[in-house]
């Protein structure tokens, strides 16, 4: 990340923010009712409207949202507006399964996303495959956040702190508070992050208008410098637009950590109201983030590839030079970015540890283990995984957007199990299993080969194959004479 000449006051603010996370963790640990998995991983299923809405928002808008979205807007121009529709489509996607899932989770006391799969489609092989997919996605997710954390600390310290040690420091803070308070501390820190991020976006939009020449001249300059980036998507690009909305809209709605938040909602009404709020937030958050990327095309021409992910930092450097107000806004935004990275990583890590503790350790390794024992194993597992990922985060060489897409390719294949499972009671296990395997094979092989037929993402093609396979297998079982069907 670009070096940002912050003043001592700003650094004290950021240090104070990090300290406050530990206090939140301590406070959340005091709120724990018991040592059960439900209390640790779902905050006792008592999440209220504002915390739920902001934690869902924070789950959707990670470090990728700030650096990856602006970077992609810079690279491809206005066709990246697809992400705005995608983020609203995520909420539309929730509406198709979340209310029923929340009700079921109350009745059946689900803890992990895989619990629903196992309840609805009683097959060990299927639930193990889904758990494995979720773990791969979550590891990818944490890795992406850690990479940005390292770059950020390096940039904020003017290169004095190495990216590796920056990640280590933030990872330790993150693990301490999430180990102490579980979902409560994670959700509370998410809520703070969401509020800071929204405020920061609105203020930075005002600063660009007031102190940096305004939006209108910036767009006029953009028309002169790069008119091709204002062009609407045509041909393959139009198909990619559609594919992006499907990929992110459906994929992000089955984020495992988001599903746990659905379980954690205090009531169905709380969930409904939170989702309603979630549908409006992209109009503020995503529009400003994209506009920043577009403005940067004219302001910082010539950045290519991974370098474009730095445009957010470059804009903040310019905002810093506008005076004390700009300094305050950048400090707030940096705090929000730091919070976004940490809260996304801790949410993913918490879900990862719950899947390991309940779906692997509690089922296959030590089925007799108590809830408290499973929770303890989950905590240790989170530390170990994080240690490995911290090391890995300094080894990889992928751009943020590529990391971002990979997880959707997999998530998209799991989505039918939730969407169809909740809405079609007659659907059996075998069609879902066949669909998932087919979709995964197509999506992952397509991704590794860099294959995009007609501009469609491999994940979208995989989903099409997945759904076709489910429909075919479902029809096959439906027309089989009675008595020849398997129990599934």
């Amino acid at each position, binding site marked *: 990340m670009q070096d940002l000449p912050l003043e001592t006051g700003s650094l004290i603010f950021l240090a104070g923010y990090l300290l406050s996370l530990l206090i939140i963790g301590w406070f959340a640990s005091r709120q724990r009712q018991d040592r059960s998995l439900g209390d640790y991983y779902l905050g006792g299923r008592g999440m209220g409207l504002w915390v739920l809405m902001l934690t869902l928002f924070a789950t959707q808008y990670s470090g990728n949202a700030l650096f990856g979205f602006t970077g992609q807007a810079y690279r491809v121009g*206005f066709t990246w507006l697809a992400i705005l529709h995608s983020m*609203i489509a995520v909420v*539309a996607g929730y509406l*198709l399964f979340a209310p029923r899932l929340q009700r079921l989770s109350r009745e059946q006391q689900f803890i992990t996303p895989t619990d629903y799969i196992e309840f609805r489609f009683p097959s060990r092989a299927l639930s193990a495959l889904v758990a494995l997919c979720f773990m791969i996605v979550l590891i990818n997710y944490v890795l992406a956040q850690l990479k940005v954390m390292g770059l950020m600390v390096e940039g904020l310290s003017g290169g004095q702190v190495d990216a590796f040690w920056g990640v280590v420091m933030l990872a330790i803070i993150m693990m301490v508070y999430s180990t102490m308070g579980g979902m409560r501390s994670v959700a509370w820190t998410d809520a703070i992050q969401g509020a800071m991020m929204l405020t920061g976006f609105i203020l930075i939009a005002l600063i660009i208008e007031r102190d940096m020449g305004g939006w209108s001249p910036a767009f006029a300059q953009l028309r002169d410098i790069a008119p091709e980036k204002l062009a609407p998507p045509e041909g393959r690009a139009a198909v990619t637009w559609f594919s992006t909305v499907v990929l992110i809209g459906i994929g992000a709605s089955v984020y495992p950590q988001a599903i746990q938040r659905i379980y954690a909602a205090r009531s169905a009404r709380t969930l409904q109201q939170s989702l309603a709020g979630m549908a409006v937030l*992209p109009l503020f958050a995503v529009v400003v983030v994209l506009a920043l990327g577009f403005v940067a095309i004219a302001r910082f021409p010539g950045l290519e590839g991974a370098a474009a992910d730095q445009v957010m930092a470059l804009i903040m450097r310019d905002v810093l030079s506008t005076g004390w107000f700009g300094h305050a806004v950048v400090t707030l935004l940096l705090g929000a970015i730091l919070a976004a990275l940490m809260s996304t990583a801790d949410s993913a890590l918490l879900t990862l540890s719950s899947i390991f503790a309940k779906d692997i350790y509690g089922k296959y390794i030590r089925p007799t283990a108590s809830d408290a024992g499973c929770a303890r194993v989950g905590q240790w597992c989170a530390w170990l995984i994080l240690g490995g990922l911290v090391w890995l985060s300094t080894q990889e060489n992928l751009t943020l957007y590529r990391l971002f897409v990979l997880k959707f390719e997999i998530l998209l294949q799991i989505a039918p199990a939730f969407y169809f499972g909740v809405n079609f009671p007659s659907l059996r296990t075998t069609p879902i299993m066949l669909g998932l395997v087919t979709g995964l094979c197509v999506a992952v092989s397509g991704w590794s080969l860099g294959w995009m037929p007609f501009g469609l993402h491999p994940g979208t093609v995989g989903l099409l194959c997945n759904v076709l396979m489910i429909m075919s297998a479902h029809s096959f079982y439906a027309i089989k004479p009675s008595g020849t069907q398997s129990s599934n």
Partner: protein
Amino acid sequence: MTQQLKDRGRWASLVLLSILLGIPWYWPEDNFGWQAWLVPGWVWVTLVAAIVLSALVVWGALRGWPDEPVE
């Protein structure tokens, strides 16, 4: 009747969503004369479509779902 309305709303939302996603196909040329103000016309149409979609989803969350009784 209420259930029918909910189902209708659900399908209407999906149809509208599909239409909104198709917008870039129908504005291949920026011939609306809106080019003069900040960004091309197709961008404004897309933004308006996003606002409509958002409003529809809010309506869906508060009125159209869920079909189980609210606690």
